[in-house]
């Protein structure tokens, strides 16, 4: 029986169209290569930056960095504890303010707002534009309205509110994307079972959207952590030898501390700044890893 099959195959193959050509077309391969080159440029830059900072800061990457406060007389004994704790306080309050606000705004825009109404469209366009406003402008806003207008002064609260305004558009936009990704069929199923709109949102839409919202929010907060410009305008102090004790406290944050040390002339400060950059990058990478983990852990196929 098998010989028969082979015979038949032989005749079929004789008449089969020829497949031989030049292999994968040249254009295809050039395109592929250019993608690799673009990727390589990005990765090489990032890697060399990391390597440089690590080599500069290696000598200072020890407990002195997070156990001690800044010391301008003897930089070898100085540390960044007040800046690290300042960053933790500022980002903590930024999250506490901008996450609820942003998520509730996103729920309104996605689930309740009628897109045919001009005011809802105006809000939407505004939010998209706000996401593109340079951070220094938010610094001016914070200085004029929050710090001076509301009289909050140069405090953790002022910094948190200003950074909240800065990242709020990003939180809103990414939360909307996450809410929109929940299929309409789930909402219909819930409503058809006699659930109210709020029950549908609370029990079906939000749980399904949480991974996406968390990912977007963490990335937004990562951006806030690295911001120095608006806080410089707010008068974030550069020489603070105590940790914040509350929202009314004065503060400094890592980017400002780094900025200040780098502008010092002594070499010890440069290595101190490099070590602080490593700490800042470590915090950022940790936050981004959590975002990636969340996305993978809870990603869903419908």
């Amino acid at each position: 029986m098998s010989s028969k099959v082979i015979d038949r195959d032989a005749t079929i193959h004789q008449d089969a169209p020829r497949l031989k050509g030049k292999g994968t077309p040249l254009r295809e391969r050039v395109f592929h290569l250019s993608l690799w080159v673009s990727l390589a440029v990005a990765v090489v830059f990032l890697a060399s930056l990391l390597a440089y900072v690590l080599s500069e800061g290696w000598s200072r990457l020890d407990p002195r960095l997070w156990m001690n406060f800044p010391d301008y007389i003897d930089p070898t004994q100085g540390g960044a504890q007040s800046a690290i704790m300042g960053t933790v306080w500022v980002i903590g309050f930024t999250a506490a303010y901008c996450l609820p606000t942003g998520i509730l705004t996103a729920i309104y825009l996605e689930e309740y707002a009628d897109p045919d109404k001009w005011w809802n469209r105006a809000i939407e366009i505004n939010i998209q534009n706000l996401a593109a406003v340079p951070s220094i402008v938010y610094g001016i806003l914070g200085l004029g309205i929050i710090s001076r207008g509301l009289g909050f002064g140069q405090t953790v609260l002022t910094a948190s509110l200003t950074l909240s305004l800065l990242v709020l558009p990003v939180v809103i936009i990414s939360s909307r994307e996450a809410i929109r990704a929940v299929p309409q069929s789930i909402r219909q199923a819930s409503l058809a079972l006699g659930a109210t709109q709020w029950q549908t949102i609370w029990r079906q839409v939000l749980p399904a959207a949480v991974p996406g919202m968390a990912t977007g929010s963490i990335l937004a907060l990562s951006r806030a952590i690295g911001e120095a410009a608006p806080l410089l305008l707010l008068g974030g102090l550069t020489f603070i030898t105590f940790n914040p004790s509350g929202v009314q406290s004065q503060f400094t944050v890592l980017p400002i501390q780094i900025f200040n040390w780098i502008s010092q002339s002594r070499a010890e400060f440069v290595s101190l700044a490099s070590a602080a950059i490593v700490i800042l990058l470590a915090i950022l990478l940790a936050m981004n890893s959590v975002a990636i983990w969340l996305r993978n852990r809870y990603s869903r196929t419908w």
Partner: protein
Amino acid sequence: MTPPSDATGGTRIPQVAFRSAPSLAGPVFEVGSLSVFYGDHEAVRDVNMTIGHRQITAMIGPSGCGKSTVLRCFNRMNDLVPSARVAGKVHYHNEDLYGRDVDPIEVRRRIGMVFQKPNPFPKSIYDNIAYGPRVGGFQGNLDDLVEETLTHAALWDEVKDKLKTSALALSGGQQQRLCIARTIAVKPEVILMDEPCSALDPIATAKIEDLMTHLAREFTIIVVTHNMQQAARVSDRTAFFTADVDDAGVRHGRLVEYDETERIFSNPSDQRTEDYISGRFG
């Protein structure tokens, strides 16, 4: 809020009684001069029909004839489309479904719906069944209710050992039967089904049809279907819809004929019905 008549309660009448004498409690729905608009477009025009108690009513017709639109009028799912507007009479037990003081949430608890594509919640099988009772403030024993409901939907034996696993792990046919079970867990009076088998293979379809026949002892069922054999197999009465194109080239859905299923398929009174069921158009 009085729950709809207890589906498993003591007042169960032998099944034969329902199939031969379906109108024990009078009509469930009375529809008169019903039109549905999407914006300015009149998608369905002048529909008149009466839906009997514990009957299976099939709605058939070509695509775009408005049968799903009409179905969604029965539990006010059209409310969710911002531009949709309903005109005419839709009475449920002599009460205007679109009356000013009618609570659409309460409407949907009494008139459940199963959709075209199985859409279980991304939760466990148990939570899918328990969802409706939970949001409705059910106070009794949920475990019992889940078992009773799944048994009712002929799904208990297949899923009893994996109640806590995700409903999305079930096959398509099982998912759709779970969706039906989820609907009856709320103990509605009516179940609307919008092409419930169109995403399923013939074996899964047969199981759903069996389930429908079985459920018709206790529930009033209205089913939209593209499958004429299905309508002929399961339904007591059949409504045939088609779309008229007016002078401006706009399509309006219309109810052409509504009668006993047997009559629709053996001796329809309208030529268009005959053409459709004999496969000449649509």
